[in-house]
């Protein structure tokens, strides 16, 4: 058998990982959702955020911990997320792939012909 397949990040996965890195220790559902919606300008259900975070957690890219319950959340606890080393690596690889493809794409975007 050949090499082990590398897991590529999906669009939303990459955006969420970047949001987690931007937010740092305050990375839980509400700020993540707001950051992602502001960045993309699209409606994204909070369930999609959690589904993606679940997937990232299963892949070992992020880890989570449960915070304390607060009154403003109706006595419900926050779930904080943190980017792990594998997540950083995956982001770096995604960036490298983008850079490898970028020159031609940038030239086209600037109005040149393919």
């Amino acid at each position: 058998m050949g090499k082990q397949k590398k897991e590529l990040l999906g669009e939303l996965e990459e955006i969420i990982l970047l949001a987690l890195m931007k937010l740092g220790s305050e990375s839980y559902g509400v700020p993540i959702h707001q950051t992602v919606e502001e960045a993309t300008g699209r409606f994204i259900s909070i369930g999609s955020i959690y589904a993606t975070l679940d997937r990232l957690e299963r892949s070992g890219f992020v880890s989570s911990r449960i915070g304390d319950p607060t009154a403003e959340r109706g006595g419900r606890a926050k779930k904080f997320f943190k980017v792990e080393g594998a997540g950083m690596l995956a982001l770096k690889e995604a960036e490298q792939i983008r850079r490898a493809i970028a020159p031609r794409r940038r030239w086209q975007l600037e109005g040149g012909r393919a």
Partner: protein
Amino acid sequence: MAKKVKSKAQRLAEKRREVARHRHEVKEVFPSVIVRADGSRVEFGPKFYGGGQQEPIADADLVDLARTFEIKAQELERYYMTHNLEEDLSNEPPKNAEYLAQLLLPSANREALLGDLVEEYPGVVAKYGVRRAKFSFYLHVVFSILVLARNAVVKWGLFGWVVELIRRIGS
């Protein structure tokens, strides 16, 4: 004996009857068109309240009547305000949506997700108003159920998810 829970339609019908009773009361006591002793006609108050009393009335009584009318109008205004505050301006997320989420969302993220929606709700109310905030809450709950239920089906299979759902509803 168990307390009978009224449906939304029943509560709405009850409110309509109450409003109609108020209107009728105001219409009976406070006409919008009054004929003075000299025969001239005086209109006051919005037509909404009004009836059509045509009998002559003395100027002195007219002042009293206007004052009473004002008090009654304020009472009516207050009634509508309270009614609106109770029904529409509550800052609480829709309970039905919360119940739906409680019932159908997978337990792993249920509490955190519902907490996030509840935390976001007042901000959405302040920005877009109560109706849109409620709609948005429902939208998030429904989409979240669809997305997370799809993931659960992929994980356990459809049969496993249905069994889990039945277990949750039963408990």
